[in-house]
């Protein structure tokens, strides 16, 4: 048994003349929750489709649970997935829709009602899919993905359309599944939505990987920054001079100066400012904010 749930190397997909996914490499260890993050159009759905055998890669290889993606029949019975939103037959009930998929996959039919209960649709299972709210549709999609009791669960933006409570529930569900040994590969265009539950992050931008690794490494990549505020704009420029004289890069943003330095340099800055006759309104470390890192990395702002 390999210890990676997903591994891809040099994977690309070209639509017409445009590379939607460009020579990406990454691995997702078994048993982790891996956040797959990137802005709209960065290639998340395209990558997931390749991993599920729905579209053929233009270049590269991939392995899921140790099996090559050219042979989806070797691993899909152990994989649950919802790609690009829930898609079901509108005229069938939620229950019937899951029955179709349970029969197709040869799964025990009792699971259908159990899963409807699990995702909170227990009492609406008999209603037609077309009468469901967006959140209910999303829940049905998650239930369908859980039908095989998957070793690997792939969910494409599962919290789209869910209210804050629903988002909490999905997060708790994913965390529970991971604790039971399921590997979860979940995409979102918001890092903040996944950072709480993810052990691992793969970040995509314009079809290219900008980060892939444990979430701790992503935090560590953040530049430590001190923020110094002053009410007087001309003082800000002098703070920049002080910082640069000491060899630290500094820039003015709005009414504060961002100094790239460890927090233990803050007292030095404070003293120097005081000596220069500058009153600092505030002096604080910038709190680790993955969203900021994300925007820096993906170049969106």
């Amino acid at each position: 048994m390999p210890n990676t749930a997903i591994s891809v190397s040099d994977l690309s997909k070209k639509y017409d003349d445009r590379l939607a996914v460009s020579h990406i490499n990454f691995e997702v260890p078994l048993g982790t929750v891996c956040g797959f993050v990137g802005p709209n159009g960065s290639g998340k759905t395209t990558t997931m489709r390749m991993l599920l055998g729905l579209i053929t890669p233009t270049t590269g290889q991939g392995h899921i649970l140790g099996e090559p993606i050219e042979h989806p029949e070797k691993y899909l019975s152990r994989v649950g997935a919802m790609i690009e939103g829930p898609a079901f037959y509108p005229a069938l009930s939620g229950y019937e829709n899951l029955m179709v998929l349970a029969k197709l996959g040869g799964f025990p039919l009792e699971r259908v009602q159990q899963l409807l209960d699990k995702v909170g649709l227990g009492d609406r299972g008999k209603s037609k899919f077309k009468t469901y709210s967006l959140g209910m549709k999303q829940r049905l999609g998650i239930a369908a993905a859980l039908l095989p009791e998957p070793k690997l669960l792939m969910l494409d933006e599962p919290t789209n359309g869910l209210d804050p409570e629903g988002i909490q529930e999905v997060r708790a569900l994913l965390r529970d599944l991971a604790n039971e040994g399921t590997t979860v590969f979940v995409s979102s265009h918001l890092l903040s939505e996944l950072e709480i539950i993810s052990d691992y992050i793969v970040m995509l931008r314009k079809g290219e990987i900008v980060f892939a690794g444990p979430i701790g490494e992503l935090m560590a990549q953040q530049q430590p920054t001190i923020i110094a505020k002053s009410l007087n704009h001309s003082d800000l420029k002098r703070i920049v001079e002080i910082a640069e004289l000491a060899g630290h890069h500094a820039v003015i943003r709005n009414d504060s100066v961002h100094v790239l330095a460890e927090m233990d340099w803050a007292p030095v800055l404070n003293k120097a400012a005081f000596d220069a006759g500058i009153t600092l309104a505030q002096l604080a470390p910038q709190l680790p904010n993955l969203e900021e890192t994300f925007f820096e990395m993906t170049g969106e702002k």
Partner: protein
Amino acid sequence: MFNVVKAELRKLRRPTLFFGTMGAALFFTGLITSFIYLMIDSPQGNGDRGRSIGREVLGLASGSVNGFASVGNFLGIIALCVFAAQTAQEYTYGTLRNLLIRQPGRMKILIGKLISMMLFAIAMIAIAAIVSIAISYILAPGAEVSTDLWFTSAGFEAIFTTFINVTISVVAFGIVGMVLGLLLRSPISAISFGVLWLLIVENLLIAVKNSLQNWLPGAQLSAIASGGAVDLTYKHALTVGGLYVAVGAIVASVLFVRRDVAN
């Protein structure tokens, strides 16, 4: 593949679809069969395209299935619509990706779908046959048609042969529907193209040049249902019609197996 059939049957037994289709089949069966007997003396004819079907023909051993064989065409068009819709909707609803995640063998999906819809079509044909023969039997005395030969061994043989011919024809129409569904990926386009072609384009072409009757796909499949037609032998219809269906099925399957599922 057996799982695919079971899953597909789950979709086909949806009440609106099942009873809607069966209802339409019964409506045409009742209408066309009754017409033959009720209009037997009409100068406008009692068969399709103004043909006259006389008492001597209806009184033959094969008389009981005259109505049923004439309905074959309509059953074929119904099958075309159902097969096309059930196939193309997987694209428009985006449900194809769910199917392929659960069963990545794309040929298995296609064949399983075909088998399940064939079962559905056979149920429809059987009901139409029973109803058509029953109506014929009930209306025959009033139209002064003798039913003495209908339930002899030659009569049952005629029923059996017609049932097989109608089934071949209807399933072939269904496969054409499936092919259109796979190629056009939209139920509305597939159904409108198929129905317009069969009901209007072919008839216009045949009106312009009668010999085209021997080469147009719809005309071949219709002729199979009635065991051959005027100037069109059963064997010819089976060969040419079979060729159309085979080529269409191969092209559509190859496309389906290779094509990216990106919607």
